[in-house]
């Protein structure tokens, strides 16, 4: 290392040391200055009281002082040592002998390159000076040339300040804390916290949000804590315990608002927006402010979401087409319901909502909804999640939403299931035929052939066992299959039963023969019993095979016919849609048309496929397979689509007409095929059904004639009544119509939602009857009007009884009780009016003697006789139907339906003989309806039941909630349960608890 380098290194070391010393001095001085300023400010704040300006002022001054001190003790000295020459001079001050050489060495070092080019003086001399200086500084100690003296004064200042702090802390304990608190508090609560209460006698007035329907609530002498719904207005009244000049209410930590102070009483108000606290600050004379030491709590009373229950036929429902599913719901909210909606989601698609009720307002609501699955657009195999959602009336935070459990439904294709069952029936047929073949092909049971004979019979026996199991299972499945023919189930069950018996009888000799064979002693005589039994099996298997073959063929054809029906229905819908589209040209209709066309194409393809399959499988004789699908039908459908897309709707209509004819032809041909097949293979059943239909038709016709004659008597009666009341009827009707209007108004005021579903229906019924009453009165038909008035009154009375019974239930919530109260009150207003109208009409009506002359009375007696004879004929027909049910199981359904008609006939007869033609007429009409319905049902049995099809023909069939009417149980039933529950107390001691619990569960 050269001399210059050694000098430079020395000077760098000096500078480093000086830097540290001055920085340390600057920092100590800054801390001391800041602490001193804060102390002064704290004293000032303590002296003047907390103020919002203090924290900032104190902080600003302290930082300022610190910066000044830092500049003075660190930055300024360091600035002076910024050059090497300055450092050399600084060293020179502490080593004066060396001062000149050192400075010269430092200054000459930059001249060295110039000296090399232009030797103004001796280079060697410079080097020698440098060498000398380097040697001299090498002997110097750093602490001597860079002392720590600059730290002395700052440290002294810091020590002095610390001494002051210690002194203050010792002499005035807590003062430092209070002063710091006074200095640091910002915002409205800068006021001094009081050590004792500053207000007393707090009274709160809570005004709840309007949607809650709650009345304002006054809470005197309270701690001041608030528990209220969000949005509640809180009014505080309290007394100041200090002589305050002014008062402030501080919400939370920063929201200060002036409180009204008058005569020492404070009034303040706020609105509850969320969990928080509040306290008062009193301004005291002299400028001091004190605040309550502990804040009062503000807590939210939550508005809970509604509680919703849904009732559906099943949690996981399988439906066989776009049917109507009955849903029940009950929702309850703590303050009020606004809307109830059905929410569903198909697969993973978007949720869809359908509002079932809106603007409810009451706390509870119940109801039923018939959910038409057609609107869901279900396809076979789709799974739909659905639930009931209820919203409350909370318009402060937004409505709370409650939801029932999620239920699921899935569309299954009844036809697919049916087809699967048919396939299994075909398997059964195969099994039966195999068993039959084994027996028929068995050799004669001679000694030589004994083994082969036994093998054949064993194989047949096993097949029969398999067939029995399959037949029994299919019989069970047929029960739940609406598309299965009536005779299928008994046929399968009978087959299983008969074959089962034969197989059981055969088991023992078979086992015996097999044992002998194992022992090697099987001879012909041992097979005698088996040989004798086998023909019975053969006969049974033969019958079974033919029956199954018949049923299979029939079901295949019925299946096809059902498909053709669906195609025809789709075609009809398509025609209607096309007409609509021609008128409206709206996009939605066009899309619907496309959907229908896809449906139709699907059906046609299925038919095509099935026809081809049937022709190939020979399950149906060729002569019954004359229906054909127009080979151009599908192409026509494509043309049609193209025409619609092009907007050529007239051409589309013509194309559709062409297609329509092809479908109609096919449908008719399939119908003919099916008819022909049935006539050949099910001749007895067809004959029995036809005869039964004819006889029912005859009865229906005769009943119509009796009803016509009864109606004539009624007309004469009405004319007579009008004649008798000729002079006063107008005035009477006018007066009664006013009452009816009053009744109508009151009936409409009855809230429907709190009522049980069946009462809701009853209320609807009552309203309709009141409407009818108005009409019949208007027409002057007093007798009919009286009937309507009685029915309306009866309905209202029944609702009232029921509602009162409901109120008595323990499990009704207080909120629901309030709703029911209102309903009962309104019912109480409507009922007397209804009763009055009934009384008026009863008084006004002419007596029966006045209305019916002797001739009509005789006629009614005659009609009673005819009705009796008709009833007898029906009885005979019922017996006949029961007898024929074996050969034609479809007839088996007739007797129950006939019994209904028979009861109507019985009542009609009684009413005719009792000279009550109006009642008799109604009974007669009911009997006619029942007979007509029965006839239609029986006719329908000749065609397959397409209700299980997945076609979109909207079925009006409802899938009901099991025991739907009991989901709020009828009054009588509830009473029985309660009575029984009371009796539970009399149960033997060991069981009393369990019995009681059982009834409690039921009541729940």
């Amino acid at each position, binding site marked *: 290392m050269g001399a210059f380098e050694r000098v430079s290194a020395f000077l760098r070391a000096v500078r480093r040391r000086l830097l540290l010393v001055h920085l340390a001095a600057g920092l100590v001085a800054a801390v001391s200055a800041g602490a001193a300023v804060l102390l002064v400010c704290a004293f000032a704040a303590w002296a003047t009281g907390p103020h919002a300006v203090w924290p900032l002022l104190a902080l600003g001054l302290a930082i300022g002082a610190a910066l000044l001190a830092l500049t003075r003790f660190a930055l300024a000295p360091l600035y002076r040592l910024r050059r090497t020459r300055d450092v050399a001079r600084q060293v020179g001050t502490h080593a004066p002998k060396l001062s000149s050489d050192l400075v010269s060495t430092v200054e000459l070092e930059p001249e060295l390159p110039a000296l090399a080019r232009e030797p103004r003086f001796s280079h060697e001399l410079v080097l020698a000076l440098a060498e000398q200086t380097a040697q001299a500084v090498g002997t110097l100690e750093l602490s001597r040339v860079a002392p720590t003296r600059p730290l002395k004064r700052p440290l002294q200042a810091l020590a002095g300040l610390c001494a002051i702090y210690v002194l203050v802390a010792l002499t005035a304990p807590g003062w430092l804390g209070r002063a710091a608190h006074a200095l640091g508090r910002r915002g409205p609560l800068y006021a001094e916290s009081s050590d004792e209460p500053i207000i007393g006698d707090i009274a709160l007035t809570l005004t709840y949000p309007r949607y809650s329907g709650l009345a304002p609530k006054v809470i005197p002498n309270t701690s001041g804590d608030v528990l209220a719904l969000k949005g509640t207005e809180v009014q505080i009244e309290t007394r100041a315990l200090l002589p305050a000049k002014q008062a402030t209410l501080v919400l939370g930590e920063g929201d200060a608002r002036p409180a009204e102070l008058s005569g020492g009483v404070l009034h303040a108000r706020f609105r509850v927006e969320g969990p928080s606290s509040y306290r008062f600050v009193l301004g005291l004379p002299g400028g001091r402010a004190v605040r309550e030491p502990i804040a009062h709590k503000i807590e939210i009373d939550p508005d809970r979401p509604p509680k919703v229950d849904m009732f559906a036929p099943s949690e996981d429902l399988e439906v066989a087409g776009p049917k109507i599913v009955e849903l029940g719901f009950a929702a309850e909210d703590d303050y009020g319901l606004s809307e109830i909606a059905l929410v569903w989601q198909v697969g993973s698609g978007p949720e869809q909502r359908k509002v079932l009720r809106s603007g409810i307002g009451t706390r509870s609501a119940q109801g039923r909804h018939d959910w038409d699955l057609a609107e869901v657009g279900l396809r076979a195999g789709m799974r739909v999640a659905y639930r009931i959602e209820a919203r409350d009336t909370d318009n402060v935070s937004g409505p709370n939403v409650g939801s029932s459990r999620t239920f699921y439904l899935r569309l299954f294709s009844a036809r697919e299931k049916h087809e699967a069952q048919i396939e299994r029936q075909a398997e059964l047929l195969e099994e039966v035929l195999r068993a039959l073949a084994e027996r028929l092909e068995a050799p004669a049971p001679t000694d030589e052939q004994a083994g082969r004979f036994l093998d054949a019979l064993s194989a047949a026996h096993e097949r029969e066992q398999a067939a029995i199991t399959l037949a029994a299972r299919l019989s069970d499945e047929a029960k739940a299959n609406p598309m299965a023919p009536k005779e299928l189930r008994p046929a399968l069950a009978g087959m299983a039963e008969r074959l089962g018996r034969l197989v059981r009888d055969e088991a023992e000799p078979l086992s015996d023969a097999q044992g002998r064979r194992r022992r090697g002693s099987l001879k012909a005589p041992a097979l005698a019993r088996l040989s004798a039994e086998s023909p019975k099996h053969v006969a049974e298997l033969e019958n079974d095979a*033919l029956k199954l073959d018949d049923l299979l063929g029939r079901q295949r054809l019925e299946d096809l016919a059902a498909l053709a029906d669906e195609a025809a229905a789709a075609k009809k819908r398509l025609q209607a849609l096309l007409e609509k589209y021609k008128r409206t040209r709206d996009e939605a209709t066009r899309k619907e048309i496309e959907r229908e066309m896809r449906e139709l194409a699907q059906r046609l393809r299925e038919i095509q496929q099935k026809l081809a399959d049937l022709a190939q499988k020979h399950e149906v004789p060729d*002569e019954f*397979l004359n229906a054909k699908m127009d080979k151009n039908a599908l192409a026509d459908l494509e043309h049609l689509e193209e025409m619609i897309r092009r907007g050529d709707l007239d051409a589309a209509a013509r194309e559709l007409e062409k297609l329509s004819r092809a479908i109609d032809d096919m449908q008719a041909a399939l119908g003919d095929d099916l008819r022909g097949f049935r006539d050949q293979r099910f001749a007895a059943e067809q004959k029995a059904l036809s005869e039964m239909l004819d006889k029912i038709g005859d009865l229906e016709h005769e009943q119509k004639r009796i009803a016509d004659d009864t109606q004539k008597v009624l007309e004469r009666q009405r004319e007579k009544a009008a004649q008798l009341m000729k002079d006063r009827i107008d005035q009477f009707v006018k007066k009664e119509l006013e009452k009816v209007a009053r009744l109508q108004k009151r009936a409409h005021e009855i809230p429907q939602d709190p009522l049980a579903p069946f009462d809701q229906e009853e209320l609807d019924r009552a309203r309709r009857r009141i409407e009818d009453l108005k009409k019949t009165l208007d027409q002057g038909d007093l007798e009919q009007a009286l009937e309507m008035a009685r029915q309306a009154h009866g309905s209202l009375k029944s609702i009232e009884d029921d509602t009162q019974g409901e109120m008595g239930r323990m499990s009704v919530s207080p909120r629901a009780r309030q709703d029911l109260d209102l309903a009962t009150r309104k019912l109480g207003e409507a009922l007397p009016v209804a009763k009055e109208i009934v009384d008026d009409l009863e008084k006004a009506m002419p007596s029966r003697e006045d209305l019916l002359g002797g001739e009509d009375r005789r006629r009614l007696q005659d009609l009673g006789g005819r009705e009796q004879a008709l009833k007898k004929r029906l009885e005979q027909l019922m017996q006949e139907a029961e007898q024929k049910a074996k050969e034609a199981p479809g007839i088996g359904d007739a007797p129950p339906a006939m019994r209904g008609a028979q009861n109507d006939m019985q009542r009609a007869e009684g009413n005719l003989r009792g000279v009550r033609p109006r009642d008799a007429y109604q009974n007669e009409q009911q009997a006619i309806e029942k007979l007509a319905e029965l006839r239609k049902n029986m006719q329908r049995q000749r065609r397959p039941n397409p209700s299980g099809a997945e076609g979109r023909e909207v079925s009006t069939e409802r899938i009901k909630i099991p025991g739907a009417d009991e989901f709020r149980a009828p009054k009588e039933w509830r009473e029985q349960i309660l009575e029984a529950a009371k009796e539970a107390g009399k149960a033997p001691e060991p069981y009393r608890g369990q019995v009681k619990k059982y009834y409690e569960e039921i009541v729940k």
Partner: protein
Amino acid sequence: MRIHRRERGEPRGSYGSVLCVLCVLCGFTTRAQAARPEQIAAWLEEWRLEEAEKAIADLEAARPHDGGPLYLEGNLRFLQGDYDGAAAKLRDAIAHDRTNLAWKGLRDLVEATANLTRSFAETQSEHFILRYPKGPEEILVPYATEALEATRAALAADFGWAPPGKVRVEIYADVGDLATVSTLTLKEIETSGTIALCKWNRLMIVSPRALVRGYSWLDTLNHEYTHYVVTRLSHNAVPIWLHEGIAKFEEKRWRGPAGSGLTPMMEHLLASALKRGRLITFAEMHPSMAKLPSQEDTALAFAEVYAAIENIWKKTGWAGVRKIVERMRDGASDTRAVADVMGEPFPEWEKSWKRYLLAQKYKLRPGLMPHRLKFKQGPAAARRSSKDDDEDTAELTVEKARRFARLAGLLRARGRTAAAVVEYEKAAAQLPGKEPLLQNKLGRAYLELGQLERAQSAAEAALEVYPEMPTPHVTLAEIALRKGDRTRAQEHFVAALRQNPFDPSVHCGLADLWRGQAQGDRETQACRKLVEP
């Protein structure tokens, strides 16, 4: 089995001869220089077209503004086979008299015929013009022309006369077409079993493809041609009984001697009628065999007239028969003509004929029922072949037999032939006689099991009573082939061909048998055509 109906003598429908004459008479009055219209109408009725044609031309010249001559010309052209020309003339005639329903009736028929046959193919042989729908029916042409030419030659020998020019023969694809070109309804055709007609100067026949098991279509062609010859020869003067008798007697003439015997069914019917003493009189046969009260009566009537001609023929030979026809052409009544030829009054001849019947000792076959022709209907028809597998057993008259036969069919379809045989035998045991359908099924089942003797016995039993059934012939041909008897196999295949030429197995079998021969090529082609349509 009755397979055709002679329409001669039936009411003529809307344009029957009487009406025609009246209509023509109403249309115009005669003139000295032209033939009288009623004469022309009679010539047309007698198919004497040459005379009628000249007379009509004269009449048209004489009465250019009348509709009557136009109507007659339309009728003439219709009989000549010019349907479009006939329709045009008839329309012109109707333009002169729009109220004439008879003319309109003929116009409708002619137009329908023209529309149906416009697309027909045509093949001509030396003496015949065959018109037929293009397609499957083409297969019939060589067999039909061969048989017709053979018939013509045979009948020319028997009657000493053959019609001049070419005779038109039309083949229709189904019975619906026959209804279209005739005055018969579809229902009448199906009920009566009418399958062919000789009318309007042409032969009309339904293709055997239209029937489930075909029918004796070549014999029927021959039968109708005989009617044609007798009509032309007699100037349409022969009554129904004689007409049908001669046609029935000559039915198989194209392939053998005349009067080749009664079928077992006809024998049975005659035997039972004789036993009852209740024959159908000739008078009862008028105006049409098809009008008899039952199919059994119709079949009996055919058997009777066959036997009557047989009786005459045996006593007088063809000369006698020919003489009767000629006598009637010359104006004699049937009774007079027969009496003259037989040398005894007609009632006497009737008695001797009945004695002849009794002397034949016809065999009674209890349980035998006339088989109805079974027409194919709907798309099912297209799927049917003559294979016995396709024949259902619904035709069996005894319920139990039907059930066993169905079971047998179910088992056989599943390859359980041995079990099926048991069921077929049970079915057969339920029947009083041999049911050919069932016997054939049984035969085929035995054949599948390789039991040739039993198979042959069953199939022969089927033919014993119904020799015209094609399926047992096919079965027997296959049995003969298995036994190596090519001659028997050929006989049976040919017999089956006469009934159902649309059965590919028949042509394929013959193609094998006739390989290397000219006929073999034809059969090979037919076989290919039917197997690979």
